[in-house]
């Protein structure tokens, strides 16, 4: 797999939406196949499970599910491939992956809700700021 990605180059443009869709699925499969290797390289066993990583990747892909322009999809696929290559080649460090795919967009300070359980919206807003 790694050899597949070693010589990255811009693939030819997709002719149709169907082709772009197919490429996307291929890309997702490639990601799923490299996940065990990534877990190994970055030693992620204690923070995340392979299935969680898979759903993180799937969420990234689904974020762009509304796109219909094959050129745009190709561009995003190229960027995704680049990212995957960086991960597999150990071009990143552990915290890059932890930050982007394990902690996610919510950030490190996560309101898990156990403290504000049952409190009103007013109180939740109050804790976060004066302007609401």
């Amino acid at each position, binding site marked *: 797999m790694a050899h597949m990605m070693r010589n990255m180059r811009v693939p030819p443009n997709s002719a149709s939406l169907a082709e772009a869709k197919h490429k996307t699925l291929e890309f997702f499969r490639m990601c799923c196949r490299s996940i065990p290797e990534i877990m190994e390289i970055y030693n992620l066993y204690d923070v995340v499970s392979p299935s969680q990583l898979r759903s993180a990747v799937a969420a990234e892909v689904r974020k762009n599910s509304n796109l219909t322009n094959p050129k745009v999809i190709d561009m995003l696929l190229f960027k995704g491939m680049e990212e995957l290559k960086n991960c597999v080649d150990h071009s990143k460090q552990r915290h890059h992956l932890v930050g982007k795919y394990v902690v996610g967009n919510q950030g490190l300070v996560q309101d898990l809700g156990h*403290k504000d359980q049952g*409190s*009103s*919206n*007013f*109180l939740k807003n*109050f*804790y976060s700021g*004066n*302007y609401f």
Partner: protein
Amino acid sequence: MGLGLLASRALRSSRILRSPSNGGPTYFLRTIVSTPELNNADAAAAVQGNPPPPPDLPKRNPVGGARVHFPNPDDAIEVFVDGYPVKIPKGMTVLQACEIAGVDIPRFCYHNRLSIAGNCRMCLVEVEKSPKPVASCAMPALPGMKIKTDTPIAKKAREGVMEFLLMNHPLDCPICDQGGECDLQDQSMAFGSDRGRFTEMKRSVVDKNLGPLVKTVMTRCIQCTRCVRFASEVAGVEDLGMLGRGSGEEIGTYVEKLMTSELSGNVIDICPVGALTSKPFAFKARNWELKGTESIDVTDAVGSNIRIDSRGPEVMRVVPRLNEDINEEWISDKTRFFYDGLKRQRLNDPMIRGADGRFKAVSWRDALAIVAEVMHQIKPEEIVGVAGKLSDAESMMALKDLLNKMGSNNIFCEGNGMHPNADLRSGYIMNTSISGLEKADAFLLVGTQPRVEAAMVNARIHKTVKATHAKVGYVGPAADFNYDHQHLGTGPQTLVEIAEGRHPFSSALKNAKNPVIIVGAGVFDREDKDAVFAAVDTIAKNNNVVRPDWNGLNVLLLNAAQAAALDLGLVPESDKCIDSAKFVYLMGADDVNLDKLPDDAFVVYQGHHGDRGVYRANVILPASAFTEKEGTYENTEGCAQITLPAVPTVGDARDDWKIIRALSEVAGVRLPYDSLGAIRSRIRTVAPNLLEVDERQPATFSTSLRPEVSQKVSSTPFTPAVENFYMTDAITRASKIMAQCSALLKK
């Protein structure tokens, strides 16, 4: 003035063309030709038509949308301004007639609240059959006068005056603080010549030291004498005057002397050039960078209307806003210059006092949890809430509801004393209203020094005394007045004498048509307060002070929160509640006496400044200051007004009512409101008058309903309620400028 005026002048010389076919929309067409010959020709043609011509000029409204008041409809006269007929009351000047006709005449020395000087000559206009242009500010309008403001003669006169004014005015606009809001700058752009013929040296004048507030650059002065007239007519101090003659003429204090008026800052606003500017604001900002927020002053109980000018998160200056009923267009120095206190000593994080006596910053969650936990361990009757002098009505309502839900009814507002009379609204507000004081012809001031307690009320009294020579009697400690008064005595004994008619001043009161009695709020703290008020009631009854058409019985409050607190019923259940309290909630209260508080009491301080209240506090909850929140304040005459947020809150602070609402939820006694709107509908059920914003709500019942008191007045003399005019609350005590003022100006 400036561009707007130029545009309006351009419009004025244009005519409305109504399309004759469809009678549809009106088109304004700017004609290039506005020569007087043409105008005259039009007017002459119109006059020739037999019926009095319907003016073919567009309908014009008075400058600033002013309304004309005719004291006597028979005395109306008609004058023509640029051919447009206007009806004005007799006795108005030509300048006022032009203003009613919608023509703004340029002026420097004329100010409608000061006497007429007529020395700048900028307001020259042409009057038909007059050999030369007349100074419109000093010329009374006569019936049938034909005034022309836009003729070559008037324009040439203005241009000439402008040239003379600029002859000795330095060209330092780029470093002048008035730049951008300067009358001379605007008017020289509008009316001045495009070139100068002046090649000699300009004169220079030595700057005067007028104290820590007013910066002088006397070379810029154009000798309009507005400041001199303001000082003697409004502020009531004869500090400023005119020295020398001709080109040696200058404004000064004769001998080196500071301006010792509490209204001195207003000379900055009335100075049409940059000769008198604000010292604390010097070189800080340009006026076009500032965002203005129309708000209310809370440093005293007058509720002066102010505009808070801010740049980003910083309040840069405070200037007055026109309100004829409250502060006219003046504000006191404290209001104008306390704003730097908003940047110092601010509380920005919730804090808890640790075992070592030091404060440690914590999260809101932890701070509220601790307060809620402690609150529940204490017997309800040992919980006390104190609202500070800067509290808004919404947060006081929330605090009262919270304490009542906890089972305590010990809540009061500082300054109201422990036995406030909250039953009769007429017993604690200014029933005459501030503007109503102008009708009075005799004053009796009881234990109040309005000059330091409410400078704007004092300015009204000064205005009345100056206009009608009203008699002023004063009972209280020796005090500084800027108008004629009789010092009747120092203690309440004098009141009893007046009540019984044994005092010489009682005849003055008896002969007065509209007598006014003003009782200071300092009396609230006296042991014999009920007896003093009973004596005042007797005086009122004997002298016909309260009639259906006149209510002259007033209380002059000290703090912005007092009237609203009494309206909302912030009355403690027991007067010894502090002595037995185990939990005290100070909502911005810094001046409440905590000496008798037991040592093991838990004190929560919610406020915006680290002031006196913080020294004893166990938990600090940072709140927003009045410049940062929306809140209702009721002033001493019973007029509710709203402050608006001008700048963002500091650090992790929250609005007062939000803190209390959040605390109530953490403590498990959730208050049923989540927004200002909801809290105001709660206020509606308690004090609906607080929702009538910007409208004075007079009291319904008179104080004659008060029960008889058997208390006797004590012989203790009255004490001054305000020790230092410049430092009365947490914000002003944190202000550096106010500290300088107290050091230099307090005698």
